[in-house]
């Protein structure tokens, strides 16, 4: 089973209330759901859609064709009808949106009328539509009604009732008007309620909080804002301070301050906001202060397409900041990985006392994924070398930047009872005082850069799927994990022996993993959501292997596996 339902309409029409009820209902009955959110940078109007893909096997990408299109406005019928699969069905309110069609698969339903009459308010259109969409499957309505109950119970029994009645009416209307039995078969539902439905942003935020995040400062910027908002919603419960900063410069400097004082701290932003953090990135590198920064990418340059997706900032984050200093860059491909990588990000930052960047993007951050489990035991907390009051037996002169083989010096936190510490953005002596000495400078540069060696060893291997040998490798990183995997499956079904090599731990490049057979023998095709093929270039440079082809997309929209498969066929 693999059904996709797209709900299209204007911003403000409640697209998400439909998609989320449908998605939640299915997830609670042990299905896998993936929602891809496509919206314009405006609050009302414009053209937007949510595409809900439902399957009994894991799904991590949007489908190319949809089975059900719910059009909340006329624009949707114009723009999205081509996405319908051959047997796909369009649901719309003909009078409401002024659209008529002779096509028997185009079903007009008086959403507005039913909403007003049955649900006592036009707002109920969304529940009517939800019921109508469900009616096209043989899924039980009762399960949707339960979900509505839960969703609206805080708003009181009347709201619950109106929503349930509306959904039922929508459902009934469709069932009455269907000539045959519902076209889309759904396997029997299990009521186990084990799976979780969550966005990439939520996974990132959860990972951070469970890793001991105590302080978050940020400035709103799409698509990073939901991370801040989710943490904000939990801050009171989990004793986290969330401070909205006056700008991104303040945000990152606050984060550096908090980390310096010993509280795990992070910020999240998008490329434009990250630009403003670059000076402080270099500050963290020089003062050897941990800092975790999530960069949720969107299409640039500049303001670009603020609510859309791109993987265009890899080159930038890899080289951001003046002077050389160590950093690590991670880029999760799915929520379970986001959880682990956030834990890793904080551990690396603390252990190596240097900034760590986690790259997301609008597609990953805003998409809803279904996961079987998020294992909190995957989270370990390693604060690195911090000397407590007990570790220093007597009051003494402590050296913040004492030399060591690893390049890492033990930290103390301000407030230590036995010692004080000096941290400096100027080149400094072991004690942390400003120096002009060429000798000390050389030592300090080497000390800092030495940390790259350790960091490199921490970087895990790419994911190879399926294992074994292949003629063709699709090389990807970060958010394209799901869609490349799906493309690889399709290619293999088509008799093209393909393999995914997916990097989620990007920098510093760990050469231990290059020997992988897949990479050295196969034809390599990079798949990236950017114009230049930034990772491909980095990969080639780091491995000496050439990337044979690039499949690139930079129109602000995520790939579908179909697109990848077609383009692979074109280039091989």
């Amino acid at each position, binding site marked *: 089973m693999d059904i996709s339902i797209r709900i299209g309409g204007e911003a403000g029409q409640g697209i998400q209330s439909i998609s989320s009820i449908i998605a939640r209902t299915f997830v609670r009955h042990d299905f896998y759901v993936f929602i891809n959110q496509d919206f314009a940078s405006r609050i009302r109007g414009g053209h937007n859609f949510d595409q809900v893909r439902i399957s009994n096997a894991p799904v991590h990408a949007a489908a190319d064709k949809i089975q059900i299109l719910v059009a909340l406005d006329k624009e949707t019928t114009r723009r999205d009808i081509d996405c319908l699969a051959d047997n796909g069905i369009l649901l719309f309110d003909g009078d409401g949106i002024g659209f008529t069609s002779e096509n028997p698969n185009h079903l007009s339903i008086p959403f507005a009328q039913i909403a007003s009459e049955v649900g006592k308010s036009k707002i109920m259109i969304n529940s009517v539509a939800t019921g109508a969409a469900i009616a096209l499957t043989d899924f039980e309505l009762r399960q949707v009604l339960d979900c509505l109950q839960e969703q609206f119970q805080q708003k009181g029994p009347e709201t619950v009732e109106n929503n349930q009645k509306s959904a039922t009416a929508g459902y009934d209307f469709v069932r009455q008007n269907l000539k045959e039995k519902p076209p889309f078969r759904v396997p029997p539902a299990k009521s186990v309620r084990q799976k979780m439905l969550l966005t990439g942003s939520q996974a990132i935020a*959860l990972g951070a909080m469970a890793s001991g995040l105590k302080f978050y400062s940020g400035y709103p910027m799409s698509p990073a804002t939901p991370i801040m908002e989710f943490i904000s919603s939990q801050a009171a419960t989990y004793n986290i301070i969330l401070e909205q900063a006056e700008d991104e410069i303040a945000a990152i400097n606050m984060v550096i301050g908090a980390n310096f004082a010993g509280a795990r701290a992070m910020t999240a932003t998008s490329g434009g906001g990250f630009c403003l953090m670059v000076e402080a990135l270099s500050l963290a590198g020089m003062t050897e202060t941990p800092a975790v920064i999530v960069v949720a990418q969107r299409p640039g340059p500049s303001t670009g397409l603020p609510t859309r997706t791109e993987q265009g900032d890899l080159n930038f984050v890899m080289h951001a900041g003046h002077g050389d200093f160590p950093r690590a860059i991670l880029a999760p491909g799915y929520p379970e990985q986001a959880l682990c990588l956030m834990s890793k990000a904080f551990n690396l930052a603390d252990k190596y006392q240097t900034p760590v960047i986690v790259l997301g993007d609008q597609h990953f951050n805003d998409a809803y994924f279904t996961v079987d489990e998020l294992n909190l035991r995957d989270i370990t907390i390693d604060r690195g070398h911090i000397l407590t009051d007990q570790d220093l037996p007597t009051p003494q002169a402590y050296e913040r930047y004492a030399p060591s083989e690893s390049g890492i010096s033990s930290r103390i936190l301000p407030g230590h009872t036995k010692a004080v510490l000096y941290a400096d953005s100027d080149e400094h002596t072991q004690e942390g005082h400003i120096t002009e000495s060429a000798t000390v400078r050389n030592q300090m540069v080497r000390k800092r850069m030495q940390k790259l060696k350790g960091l490199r060893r921490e970087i895990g291997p790419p994911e190879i799927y399926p294992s074994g040998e292949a003629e063709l490798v699709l090389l990807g990183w970060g958010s394209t994990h799901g869609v490349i995997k799906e493309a690889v499956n399709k290619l293999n079904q088509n008799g093209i022996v393909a393999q995914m090599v997916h990097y989620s731990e990007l920098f510093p490049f760990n050469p231990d993993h290059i020997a992988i057979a897949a990479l050295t023998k196969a034809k390599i095709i990079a798949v990236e959501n950017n114009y230049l093929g930034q990772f491909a270039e980095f990969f080639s440079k780091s491995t000496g292997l050439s990337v044979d082809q690039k499949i690139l997309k930079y129109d602000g929209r995520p790939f579908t596996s179909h697109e990848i498969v077609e383009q692979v066929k074109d280039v091989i």
Partner: protein
Amino acid sequence: MVTLEDFHSDDPIAWCPGCGNFSILKALKKALVDIQQPPNELIIVSGIGQAPKTPHYLRCNCFNGLHGRTLPVATGIKLANHKLTVLAQGGDGDGYGEGGNHFLHAMRRNINITYLVHNNQVYGLTKGQASPTSEYGFVTKTTPRGARNPAFNPLLLAIACDCSFVARGFAGEIEHLAALIKKGIQHKGFALIDILQPCVSFNRVNTFKWYSDRVYKIDVNSQYDAADRINAFEKAQEWGDKIPIGVFYRIQRPTLEDQIPAIAEKPLVAQQTDPAVFSELLETFK
């Protein structure tokens, strides 16, 4: 007992002989001894410039960060560990030029930080360009025909932002300055102390003598009511033949830290996280 010796630092001082910063350092140390501040529980966050070198010349915790960014770093530190005494220290260019935005918003937050601005009305470390507080007509290499803008008045701005403690000191009045710093640290909330600081190398107009001839103390033997905002705004406009020093404005309003239940019991740094507690939250996604 905390003594002057406790604040002794071995780091050699890199200021010009005769610089006003020496007196400020002296006053600062004096104030710290007066309030019996343990050096270990003090942190000074500074920017880049001559003034921001100060924390190296004390024994205390020091984070010498970026030009203009003292206040956000100090804010992060204070929120992570509000048991620390947090001072921010910088120059006029640092604080009112590069760092202007953070200054505005730190005052609004009323976070319990004391902010010392060594105001020499010039960019010292970069060798003498006009700063926001340079007077109209001040001649430098970047303003060869004199500064075209009137001097920025930090006190007026602070009063407009309802900064809860607004004071001006003078490097030439060490006792008075030490008392101001002491009051600033003891004040609950954000305390701005703008300090007139002669720069013997690059400001030949606003010299020790120039300031000495003009400054007078508002807070001694006077009816001055520092809680009166309008009054303070009027007083802070005085500049010229007579320049008032002292506490211009002081009110009580809730600090940022006081409003955050998360740290009502203990500071963030003292709180441990057990990942397992989030299992409950995970349930909400099912």
